[in-house]
């Protein structure tokens, strides 16, 4: 059974307690968002998630989207839910007040995103993509385009898409063929086919604004010849209401493994009128701005799924009575004990719990950086925040979605045979969560981004934003009696990360294939250290709170236990990753292609 209640206590811990000393400081521009206000927003978001979106998750999965006569219909209830969502101002939560947004800090916004994704991942894509598209328009479009489109998109009246992929090109966008021909009035006629367009067509909004990558007639070959265009589904009239159809048609919607309530469309642009966003041939830059924002959000999708899977598994583990505890009967009144008494079930539940709390804590840190990058007044802080975001974006995207998927699979395992039956609802998490490891750049691409771009840039400057706080923390707490083994564990994993980093920098310079072979393990290693750092910090805070007395003793005791579990049972994977990195590419690349 799909069970979900927003983990508000842990979210508040991450927002208010965990990262206060992360060096990004208090941000003056966000001072109006007091803890009370933040908590109120979180509680309201939790209500929307559990009361409006969660009930549509399974029905939406069963019904899916349909295409009839060129019109895509979302599953029953989605339109009403979207209207409620939009009217409640949830679309505009994190957007700039200049365009009608509420300017909520990312530290809060990412938590609301997590809730929405836990409740209904398919639904989350509709407002999510709109948000991504507004980011690119805000950053690169002309003032005229901004004035015209942003208010409508920020409010959620109009939605947005990103049209990148074509039938013959996915990751390698340099090969794309869609054309844009300039017109005398400064607009362009865009023609071509795009596939895998999430929210490409639907019945939730009165208009859809497509951001389309295409080539100008004089474009150089490859990725340096790609420009970005804004192409509305309906050409807006002067008064801003949708006008005539703009030649964008849906050829098909995809039949997918999961995420069935999200319409994934094949779109044809047939001489559709569009406007250039940013400079000619510089479309990739604008697209990457949007993509980087989106990648963190996709990571949060992984966390959202992982949390929902965990809660559903806990629910079942407490309900399901099978066998007796190895340490003696725990439920003498019943025919058997609940399966949560079994160590292996505990193992699974604790892994899921630790994954969620570790990712949430790390996500909270990255969100702080997102806020600092946007609002901090000190340029040094801004720079450090940017460096940290650059470094952690691939980690968040790949680590969170990998772990979310791991959680979903573990949830199925906790359910046993029932988990394999659709009715249980948990197999949907496996199917829905799977895509997050793929889109917005596969997790393999994330790992390459990390070792190939983020690691070597500016002689490792991005690394500093992460390695220095961790190093300082270890040095400051090494002498701590109670947590000595924990800090030493972190120190050991951190040492492995430092050594791996130096090795990759050295070997990868000479032989890029070595860097490529190390990439995925390296990303995991960095993720483990980052989560370990967050857990160690959490443990120290929890101990202090418990020592000074708190009403929330249960929460902090659980936090301590989860942290300890992470250090005992998960962080040792750092050694595995380190050994794999050390082994190099030799055996990985040994076979001739013909031997496969």
């Amino acid at each position, binding site marked *: 059974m799909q069970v979900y209640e927003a983990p508000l206590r842990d979210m508040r811990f991450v927002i208010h307690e965990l990262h206060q000393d992360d060096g990004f400081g208090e941000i003056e521009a966000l001072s109006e968002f007091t803890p009370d206000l933040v908590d109120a927003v979180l509680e309201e978001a939790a209500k929307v998630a559990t009361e409006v979106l969660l009930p549509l998750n399974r029905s939406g999965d069963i019904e899916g989207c349909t295409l009839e006569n060129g019109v895509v219909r979302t599953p029953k209830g989605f339109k009403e839910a979207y209207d409620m969502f939009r009217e409640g101002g949830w679309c505009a939560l994190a957007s700039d007040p200049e365009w009608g947004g509420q300017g909520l800090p990312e530290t809060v916004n990412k938590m609301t995103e997590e809730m929405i994704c836990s409740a209904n991942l398919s639904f989350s894509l509709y407002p999510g993509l709109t948000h991504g598209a507004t980011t690119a328009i805000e950053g690169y479009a002309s003032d005229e385009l901004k004035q015209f489109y942003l208010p409508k998109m920020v409010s959620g009246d109009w939605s947005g898409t990103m049209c990148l992929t074509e039938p013959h090109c996915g990751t390698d966008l340099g090969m794309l063929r869609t054309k844009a021909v300039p017109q005398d009035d400064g607009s362009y006629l865009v023609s071509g086919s795009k596939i895998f367009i999430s929210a490409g067509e639907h019945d939730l909004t009165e208009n859809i604004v497509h951001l389309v990558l295409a080539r100008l007639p004089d474009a150089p070959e490859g990725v340096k010849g790609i420009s970005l265009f804004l192409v509305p589904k309906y050409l807006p009239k002067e008064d801003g209401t949708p006008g005539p159809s703009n030649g964008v048609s849906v050829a098909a919607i995809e039949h997918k493994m999961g995420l069935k309530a999200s319409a994934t469309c094949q779109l044809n642009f047939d001489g559709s009128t569009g406007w250039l966003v940013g400079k000619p041939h510089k479309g990739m830059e604008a697209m990457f701005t949007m993509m980087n924002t989106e990648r963190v959000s996709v990571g949060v999708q992984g966390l959202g799924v992982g949390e929902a899977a965990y809660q559903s598994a806990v629910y079942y583990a407490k309900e399901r009575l099978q066998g007796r505890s190895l340490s003696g009967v725990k439920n003498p009144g019943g025919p058997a004990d609940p399966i949560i008494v079994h160590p292996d079930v505990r193992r699974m539940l604790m892994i899921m719990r630790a994954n969620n709390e570790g990712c949430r804590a790390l996500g909270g840190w990255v969100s702080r950086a997102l806020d600092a990058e946007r609002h901090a007044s000190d340029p*040094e802080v801004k720079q450090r925040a940017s460096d940290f975001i650059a470094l952690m974006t691939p980690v968040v995207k790949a680590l969170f979605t990998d772990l979310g998927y791991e959680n979903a699979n573990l949830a199925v395992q906790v359910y046993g045979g029932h988990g394999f039956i659709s009715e249980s609802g948990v197999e949907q998490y496996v199917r829905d969560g799977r895509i997050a490891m793929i889109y917005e750049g596969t997790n393999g691409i994330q790992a390459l981004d990390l070792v190939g771009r983020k690691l070597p840039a*500016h*002689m*490792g*400057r991005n*690394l*500093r934003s992460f*390695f*220095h706080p*961790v*190093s300082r923390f270890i040095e400051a707490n090494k002498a701590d009696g109670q947590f000595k083994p924990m800090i030493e564990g972190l120190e050991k994993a951190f040492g492995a990360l*430092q050594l791996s*980093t*130096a090795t990759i*920098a050295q070997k990868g310079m000479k032989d890029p294939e070595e860097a490529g072979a190390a990439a995925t393990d390296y990303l995991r290693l960095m993720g483990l250290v980052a989560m370990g750092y967050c857990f160690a910090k959490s443990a120290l805070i929890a101990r202090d709170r418990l020592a000074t007395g708190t009403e929330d003793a249960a929460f902090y005791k659980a936090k301590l236990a989860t942290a300890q579990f992470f250090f005992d049972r998960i962080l040792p994977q750092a050694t595995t990753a380190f050994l794999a990195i050390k082994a190099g590419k030799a055996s990985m690349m040994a076979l001739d292609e013909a031997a496969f």
Partner: protein
Amino acid sequence: MSPLSNESAIKKVCVIGAGTMGAGIAAQVANAGVPVLLLDIVPRDGANRNAIAEGAVAKMLKTEPAPFMSKSAAKLVETGNIEDHLDKIAECDWVVEAVIERLDIKQGLYAKIEAVKREGTAVSSNTSTIPLGQLVEGRSDAFRRDFLITHFFNPPRYMRLLEIVTGPETDAGVAAKVERFADVAMGKTVVKANDTPGFIANRIGTYWIQLGLNAAFDMGITVELADAIAGKPMGVPKTGIFGLVDLVGIDLMPHLQASLTSTLAKDDPYHAIARSHPLIEKMIGEGYTGRKGKGGFYRLNKEMGRRKETVDLATGEYRETVRAAGPSGAAGKGDLRKLVETKGKVGEYAWAVLGGTLAYAAGLVPSAAGDVVAIDDAMKLGYNWKAGPFEMIDKLGAAWLAARLEAEGQPVPEILKLAGDRTFYRVENGKRQFLGLDGEYRDIVRPEGVLRLEDIKLASKPLLKNGSAALWDVGDGVVALEFTGKMNALDGDVMKLIVEAIGLVKAQYKALVIYNDADSFSAGANLGLALFALNIAAWSEIEKLVAGGQMAYKGLKYAPFPVVGAPAGLAVGGGCEILLHCDAVQAHAELYTGLVECGVGLIPGWGGNGEMLDRWQNNKMMPKGPMPAVAKVFETVSTASVSRSAAQAKEMLFLRPDDAITMNRDRLLYDAKQKALSLVEGYTPPEPPHFRLPGESGRVALGMAADGFHKQGKATDYDLVVSDALANVLSGGEADLVDTVSEQELLKLERETFMRLVREPRSIARVEHMLETGKPLRN
């Protein structure tokens, strides 16, 4: 001071003509420690009859890059005028004429010189255009015996090429005397040229420039693209052709052209390409003569916020400079064949310029130069080409070039036919050989006293080698330690090799020389590596590197054999510290050394502090007490001062007063080796010094001095933090005047202070800024 002053046949020189060239030649003579008389005409107005020569010296004292290597060198220049002081020529062994390029004036001057000079006193002209035969018309046989052409390049201190032209009557002994002085005392590489117009370098260089201009106009390609092709990809300076013309002056071009067209033989290919371009004439007419004028093909438009602009060759108007997409891949990285075979305008332009120039140069042997080596040396040293024309032909393939010329209906130079499918250079039995005019290969013979590591490397294998350093046997029981990393940067591998080398030399050799053939001896510690280590918080690794360097350098200092440093060019930071640990230094005159760590927010960490303290404390010029030496070192190091010459390095005590200086770069290794051998007998390592240091009170005093600079706005906030760390080390930390501080204690203090500083975010920011921009960050 000069290595020659006692034995040389030339003990005093006279330079007549105090223009840029004459004054610069005089300065270089003075740099060699030899007195020089600088004469010019008497100015038409003004009371001071020596005003022109005096003005030239005064101007040189302010010129950058400086013509003089030291202030004391400037004092060796005696100024005068040719009306009152020409008789002083009788005191001189060599007279260099560097007056205006007019035959009548030169001839008139020679008549006057002949009247006062001693027999056997060499007279040479610095002419770049007038044939020797015309210059000596009307002069006596005796004068003709003493006469030759010495063609220096601008600026004379820094350009290594000297073309020497002798006439049929020039006395071999006189020519040899001048040649030896120019080589050993003035540090020039002498290339013998025949008495043909433009000699070698300018003849080829002018042809190359003309081809480049013509082709750009004819093919309609932009200035930026032209320079992106005929620049780095060809192995010539990245200024390219238009940039070079801007530098030397666009108005010089018509003069060169007129001179060459009037003097070159009728059938010389130059006549076919010598053209004037209306745009260039217009630019000269309007004062756009290059960097010295209102602008050239490039300019900075200050009215447009220092916008970089370039002339559009089609319209003649300035427009914003656009970075050109030059040759890519191997074609952009020195593969000449790929470059000229690149499709489209890039390849066409490259071929037009390079193919034409190489064919022309190949036609100049033996008419302008005796062999291919002279041609190549002239272009490498006179125009800073990485490879000479024949070395470039080897890259293209002589047979390939001949075939292509033939296919295009162009004449194939005889020497290309002679080479056939052979190369002009080869290595045989570890010796570099060149193709002679008889079609036989012969060894390239270095002059007596010239030893090049590149020759040794061809003929032998390294004794030790790793990624950053190598050790070579340079003969007679001496080994040379060579740095091999990028910019000869120093890292853990270098230190490792030093330790191994010490063991090897102790067991099997007599002495160690630290030397490399590169332009820069060493830029110091590998900052890129250090920054990466800083960024990943690898503190223990950094401390290991610091301690390892201290140990290796002290190992050199106390090794039971002599260690001689032989630096040339840049030797800063750790590259300076290693020299401070040598028993003696044989330095090239062009030595730019100093402890520059403060510039990147650090302090010397490889023992440099103690070595400098020791030198200044034992300097007899210093007042008594511990403080003066500490203050002196503090001043030098906190300001990251770098010497502008070896002579200046002595003043700063980066070199000891008795360290030796070699003027000619090619002679450095040989001289260093001799120096090392001279120290072998009875060698005993130095005793470790003990320091008497002022401690806290000294640190406070130094801090007050630094505060003064801060108040004047000369030091930034963070400079104070860095200089305080330096002051902490130099004053001995917790030391007390009544105690002595051992060398090891000082090293520990240096290391700890360094490690504290290296963690400071603002130090890291400085290191990062230096690596990214090449400039210090003043945070």
